[in-house]
């Protein structure tokens, strides 16, 4: 597993992007590492709750990739410096601090797991 030092996480995770949308819980990350081809999105952990690929959609630009359809033969390409949005469909977000763990497989560097913390303050009224 590739080590992602915390200093890099600050560049990869878009801080403050954790939010509730009509589709579910969403957050953003930016591919600041290099040309990125994702061949698997294993899971997302939100605090102690695990969300499997069937519940996850990855949005890159105008393209949506259901996570359970991302594979070596159907990879999701996130270009260098491009922002991708992870959506956990149908999930609800409580206000407060949350730990997010993203577990994915990149064609370039193999398995990548990283955890970040972000807070959600509710919808701006």
């Amino acid at each position, binding site marked *: 597993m590739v*080590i*992602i030092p915390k*200093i*890099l996480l600050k560049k990869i995770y878009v801080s403050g992007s954790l939010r509730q949308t009509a589709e579910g819980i969403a957050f953003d990350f930016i591919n600041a590492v290099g040309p990125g081809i994702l061949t*698997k999105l294993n899971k997302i952990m939100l605090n102690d709750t695990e969300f499997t690929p069937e519940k996850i959609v990855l949005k890159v630009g105008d393209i949506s990739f259901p996570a359970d359809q991302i594979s070596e033969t159907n990879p999701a390409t996130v270009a260098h410096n491009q922002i991708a949005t992870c959506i956990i469909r149908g999930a609800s977000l409580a206000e407060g601090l949350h730990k997010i763990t993203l577990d994915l497989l990149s064609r370039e560097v193999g398995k990548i797991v990283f955890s970040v913390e972000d807070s959600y303050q509710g919808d701006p009224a």
Partner: protein
Amino acid sequence: MQPAVTSVSQIQWDRYGFTINGQRVTIRSGAMHYFRLPGEALWRQRLQQLKAAGYNTVDLYFNWDYHSSAPGQYDFSGYKNVDALLAIVAELGLYLIARPGPYINAETARGGLPAWLFQQPDVQLRNRLSEVDHYSPAYMQHVEAWMDQILPRIACCPTLIMVQIENEYGTESLDPQYFNELTAMVRRHGITVPTMHNDFYAFGLYADEVDIYAIDNYCVTSFDHNWREQADVFAVVDGMESSIRPEFCQHRPLMVAELQAGWFAQWDGPSYATIDQSLDRHHIGLITRSVLGQGCTVFNHYKAIGGTNWGHIGSSDVCTSYDFCSPISEMGLPTNRLLEAKQINQMLASFDLNQTERIDWSVSQHPAANESTAYALRQHVETGSRWLFARNLRPNAQLIPLPSGVMATIKPYEMVCLPTALPLMSGLTLIESSLEPLGAHTHALVFGFDRVGILSLSGVTGYQVESLPKSVTVTCENNVLTLSLLTAAPESSVTSMSLTTVTGDTIWLHGLGVHNVDRYWRLSDDAALIGPDGMEAMPNEQWVAYQQYDATRDNPTNWARINAAGECVALPALSPSFPPLLEQQLSQWEYQPVGMPSISAMSPLTSPSATFAELDMPHGLIWVSQSLAQPVKSIAIEAYHGITVLLNGHQIAKQTHLVVPPETLADKVPVLTIDVNQTAEQFAALPDKMNHLTILVESFGDHKGFYQDERLPSGIVSLSVNGHNALVGARWSAGMQADTGITDIASWVLGQEADNLAESALLWHASTTVELAVPDSVQTSYGLVFDHGQFERIYMVLNGVLVGRYWSASQAQRLFYLPEGILNHQGLNEINLVLVPGELVPESPESVAVLLGTIRLVPVAQYERCLFSRETLL
């Protein structure tokens, strides 16, 4: 022009690059793994090739594991004689970038950490636990012992210019203590050259702890898609000047410590033929010129020289060949990538691209030009000369305007560096050119005339040309000579004209046809050869030139030399002096069955499992046996990499896991479950006797540690019979273990099960001899080719050295290099094979011969060798 390399007495750096002994130098480095080239002769030959291709620096990893098989024991003799290696480096005048680890990755077992280190108490490898810094005094103590061995040797190399600290290192909290202590070790040994670290992520990791911050860049690592269709394929290097420079390199040079020049083949991956097709000369040309366009003046092609995973050097994922699709192949052959790199290196050796800054460049006012092709415009801060870096990542040719408005054509997937306002020798100035210059000498300029284009020079008062080809027109007005190429010059042509300059000197301008563009070898400021297919630069201004033997070539190739006066002089044609060496089919094999070792001769297993690490066996084959006084109903074995299970002497199951999917990592070791009642009932229960369970375990090496998988075990992690631990009371014996091949082949061949339970051989041994008589004037490399065989795996032992591992299920490799030095080119050679059957288990020597298929000994390429000295050239 840059000076010849001598001992480094002073080294300084700034944002533009290195100044060595008072001279600015572009560091044109290529990586070589000496531990993958067994022998001093191979090191010398490959390094001479490297130098001849215009590289001025070699990058060397130093492999701790290779030199240390036990705590406190270090071997620097024979193939491991680092002192001899560094003496060659210095003798050839190559600068040295030293990378002593302690961790090196390099697809070596455990990333170069010695096997014994893993058994030491309190050692926390690389001072990190999971992803967090975890300082380990015990680890540092062992590291210091290694550094005390290797650093004094490195310090003695007079051409040392840089030492790397650790390798692609990262932790979550970036504690600098580890780096600071490694740096202190370097300094304690009197090494004063700058330190460097290669950041895999290009994120500034440990940038403050080293003198020179560097990145590694591999933009193509997957070969099931075409990198040409990926618009941002070079994104990281394209951002060097905008992102890395301001954050980390304002006052130090941009450096790429590992600039992709190839990639490695894995057991389950594409073959080198596929990688070769993808990473062609376009790739190395594009990525190298791109970093130059970013203002990078220190690069290291990784790797420049291929190698072999002989013995047990490689990590478990890589096949025997570590060719890497390097510019100089595993077999020492010059590839198209080398010719492309040579072209860049020779240009950099001729012209100063060190002190440049990027200036604005827009081509939007030219409707015919494509904005994306205008990559960068750089201006020399002192001379004001400019270099246009034009890059075409499209499948069709693109146009780019020169300052005069003349359009230059950039071919598909090509990048060029075009000079303007470039001051030259003897009062000449290159006003502009749509042709990238190949090289400059004291009295000569060399360009490729392989395309349509123009070049204009000021400071010319007259010119003379014996016969001007129809493809070229020349005008000379107001001391400006303008040369136009209306069509590409013929392939093997050289168009030469003498120019009289405003200073009254004579300067020669040589234009080469496309064949000669690749075969121009800039040997020094005042000498060049045109024509050879390959070259070596030897000490004392001597050179070896190669001409490939080609039976289809009707006429000998015409060679020429550029002499001290700048003239191009024809050389006598070189005709092959030898008949071609032919391949040989090896058919005279002797076959013998390999019996299991006697259980009574085995040692009691004292460890809780039978992993290679616990048995103090870093690699190879082991036997594990257990006698069971009960009927056997089920067996479950948790093991890597290959296991063959025999019950009462009969094979009942086998499993091979040479490849660890990255998503499994250290979490899971595969389990082989055998329902004996279903698979081998007849052997399952011998009520009146003991049941004998024997397992042959093969390790294909330890993991490389890049994914923190260096501790992933090979061997048997657990063995249960009928649901109970069956390793208690088991016995074991080593099989093939040493780097030098089969430790005790005689006992293998003759050994028989003492209790007479072995009814059939599990393995077979084949041996033959072959005599070679390669003429002295011939440069060739031999390979062993396996065709149509049906054995699952074959271990190849040449003259007592394990030189190859064949695995039928992998498409990665069918041709195995037999390194010169191990292979005797002038005498008798002994080849031993250990054959591991697949589904079909042979029962007689005759059936072994059938299953072995055809094995050929092939001279892969043949070159006529010709020696030149400075006297003969000038």
